[in-house]
């Protein structure tokens, strides 16, 4: 699914009545099945962009489109992964993963079967009936990833999904995400603070400026796919990281 954004602006109203521009104006096109990573200083409106694309927030001006249709409200074709795992603590792992299907009216047997199919790919075998309070941060994010993937989204929105994880867990879960995304054929837009993660996963890295966030660089990562953790030691990988780094420093 193609994601396009035209002259999009998000402005917040401060308590004093002052207008606080958070994002834009910004325009870009993301081709179907492309993976875009967004990096930039904190408070540059990245999360606002994700919320607009998810249909959770109306832009102040301009528009965002899915296959040329303006985004007005949340769409079943779009999956959103939050900064924290955002699981329901009273639901087991499998019922958390199956939630979107449950809300769509899929029968209990069918949705549990589909969730069970995802469990091994997520590395959650044996934890089907565990509660979120029993999981580590990394596992909780895996459950959250499963919950997004089960609805087979055509657009995957990821708002710093691994920000709170330690480096090792983070790398492993990024690689798993890479594999699951490739199987899914979804367009992915991911906000991250980790440049190496951005380069490893993405086809394009968008660099945003300080608030109000504007697109100041669009770095095409031409590393071949499928990618592996070894790729991070390539010279080309290092060049891309430096290129993105330099763009951020200009931000």
């Amino acid at each position, binding site marked *: 699914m193609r994601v396009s954004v035209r002259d999009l602006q998000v402005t917040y109203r401060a308590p004093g009545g002052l207008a606080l521009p958070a994002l834009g104006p910004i325009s870009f096109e993301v081709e179907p099945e492309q993976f875009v990573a967004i990096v930039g200083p904190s408070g540059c409106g990245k999360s606002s962009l994700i919320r607009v694309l998810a249909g959770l927030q109306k832009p102040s001006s301009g528009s965002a489109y899915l296959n040329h249709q303006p985004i007005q409200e949340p769409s079943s074709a779009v999956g959103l992964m939050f900064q924290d795992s955002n699981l329901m603590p009273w639901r087991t792992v499998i019922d958390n993963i199956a939630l979107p299907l449950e809300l769509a009216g899929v029968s209990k047997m069918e949705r549990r079967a589909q969730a069970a199919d995802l469990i091994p790919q997520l590395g959650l075998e044996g934890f089907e009936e565990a*509660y979120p309070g029993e999981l580590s941060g990394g596992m909780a994010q895996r459950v959250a990833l499963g919950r997004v993937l089960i609805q087979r989204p055509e657009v995957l929105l990821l708002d710093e999904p691994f920000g709170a994880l330690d480096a090792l867990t983070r790398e492993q879960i990024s690689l798993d995400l890479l594999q699951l995304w490739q199987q899914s054929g979804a367009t992915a837009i991911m906000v991250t603070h980790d440049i190496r993660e951005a380069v490893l996963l993405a086809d394009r890295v968008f660099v945003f400026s300080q608030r109000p966030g504007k697109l100041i660089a669009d770095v095409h990562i031409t590393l071949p796919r499928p990618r592996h953790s070894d790729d991070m030691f390539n010279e080309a990988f290092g060049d891309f990281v430096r290129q993105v780094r330099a763009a951020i420093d200009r931000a």
Partner: protein
Amino acid sequence: MLANVLSYTLNKFISNEKYVLKPRRSVVRRYALIATPLTVLAVWHFITLLELFPVFIIPSPQAVGIKLIAVIQDGRLWLHMGVTLQEVLGGLFLGVSVGMILGYLIAHIPVLEDLLSPIIVAFQATPILAYAPLLVIWFGTGITGKMITGALVVFFPMLMNTIVGIRSVPENLRDLMRVSRASRWQLFAKLELPAAMPVLLTGLKTSATLAVIGAVVGEFVTANAGLGYWVKVARDSYDTPLVFVAVISLTVIALSLYGAVSLLERRLLAWQRRHRLVD
């Protein structure tokens, strides 16, 4: 204003909840639980042996026991207990339902809070005993008046807990429901209700014991049956052992209700007792 009264109410009762959720007690602590009532009974027995007070002030445990057996045999205990139990359950049901519905609406429609809080807080601040006679005038001397008295006492903590519970549902989870295109009903049944459940159950536990107070207050005003009425009648005829029997019966009702809600809580909140398996 409402919010302040509310957090006070909440803090007052939230400590009870953790107690029930604790892991199993050690053997010593379980014996300790029985030891206290036994000690009280022994001290009571000892004091009456000394014959410091006349029987109509402190009757012996035996006198109370004999009275208890007598009223069980002539069926009066079941009669009065039955009446009070009906009043308590009716009042509880009414107060909890209205409190939850109104609390849910207030949690979602802030202007309702501004409109209603003067009335609600005034009702809560005025001692129920003061306006209970009015309720008798309006609703008669029968069971209904006591149910309404009970409902009014129960209503406030249930309302407060519902408001707190619904308002404390994490915004992120609301967003999740929105992106998953949940219906209004699904939002309530799959998110708001389970997320607010711990707070709602705390409110229900408070309400369960308050409903007993409400029913007894109603019976004290006017009644011709019920345990509260019985206490009054027995006191007027200096039948202190009977007062003891009636009071103990009320304790049994209150504790049973409290226990029932605690059991419900253990079942519904089982997930809270599960801790980390891995790191």
